């Protein structure tokens, strides 16, 4: 897992009942809405740093210039998790990212990201027991057309309770 997100602490380790309760309370409920406006330079720098060569992502003068397809996966919601979301005892990491572009995101355009918890589950891995929260942001234009969705899989690597 490549990206450490945060250290969390709780007075007890998460139990399966806590997971079931969290699923009932939080799944598919939009908990954050945030507006974004991007610059052409942002898109081009993002693309060029990744080694992108297609001019529609690297050249702001291109008639179809737009955000690189993975750009939506980089967006942060205003709140990382919903208010009242259970605190899991451990180290938060970014375990995976998915992006699904639907329509081009253009520079200078105001877009809205609406975020919900799409799944919560547990498993064990190389680094011990883990709790996964799949966070989905859907990005819309002002006319409410879906432009893209981006999934972030946040994993909390559980630490023994103190």
């Amino acid at each position: 897992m490549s990206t450490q997100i945060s250290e969390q602490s709780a007075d007890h380790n998460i139990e399966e009942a806590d997971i079931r309760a969290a699923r009932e309370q939080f799944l598919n409920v939009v908990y954050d809405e945030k507006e974004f406006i991007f610059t052409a330079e942002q898109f081009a720098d993002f693309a060029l740093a990744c080694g992108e060569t297609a001019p529609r992502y690297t050249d702001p003068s291109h008639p179809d210039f737009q955000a690189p397809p993975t750009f939506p996966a980089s967006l942060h919601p205003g709140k990382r998790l919903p208010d009242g979301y259970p605190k899991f005892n451990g180290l938060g990491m970014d375990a995976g990212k998915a992006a699904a572009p639907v329509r081009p995101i253009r520079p200078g355009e105001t877009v809205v990201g609406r975020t919900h918890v799409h799944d919560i589950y547990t498993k064990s891995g190389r680094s011990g027991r883990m709790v996964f929260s799949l966070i989905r942001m859907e990005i819309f234009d002002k006319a409410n057309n879906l432009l893209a969705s981006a999934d972030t899989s946040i994993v909390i690597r559980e630490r023994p309770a103190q």
Partner: protein
Amino acid sequence: MILDLHAHSIKSDDGRAKVQNYCQWIRTRNLPIDGFVLTEHRQFDFESDYSALAADSGLVILKGSEVETEYGHVLVFGVATAIRRMTEQLDFTNIRLALTDVLAVAHAAGAVAVPCHPGRPRVGMAAHIGTYGIPQGVSIVETYNGGSRDNEDAIAQALASEQGYRGIGGSDAHIVSHIGRCATRFSVDIHNEAELVEALKAGDFEAITFREQAA
């Protein structure tokens, strides 16, 4: 006959491979395996029927499970009726199963439980022997795993050698192009889960790797 005994499809949360694409990949690439076992994480896939796909592709497609215990992950192979009995007695979704329970329930149901990637930190058996001791009832471990890094397979093989375990091989594929990286060679033909269990119990098999060729 050579079978890859450890593969995941899109039925697993982190699996990204469709079973038909595994078949197409094996045939297009002329991989030297005769089939594979789908060992989905924390579940047994009762619903999917791959018999038509197996017939079309000329491959053996079997089903098992990968469950999670205090000693790490464990593959379970067995005829569907045995697995059904096992799932009635064990919650496969529970990531804190006791290895002794998995082994005992598998044994009683006529299935076979095999600790996988035992040399891997945290999810491999070797990492937990210091805490829990040598588990009773293990006779086979996975000694070649296609997802192993560093010296994980070497640790697995040393453990097998020290404890007298037999070794199997599996790719641990989660994407199409990783199928067949490791496998198990049997001296007999295997067409279904019951024959796989019989062959594993007979002990006439060896773990093999194709990773060097594939790299």
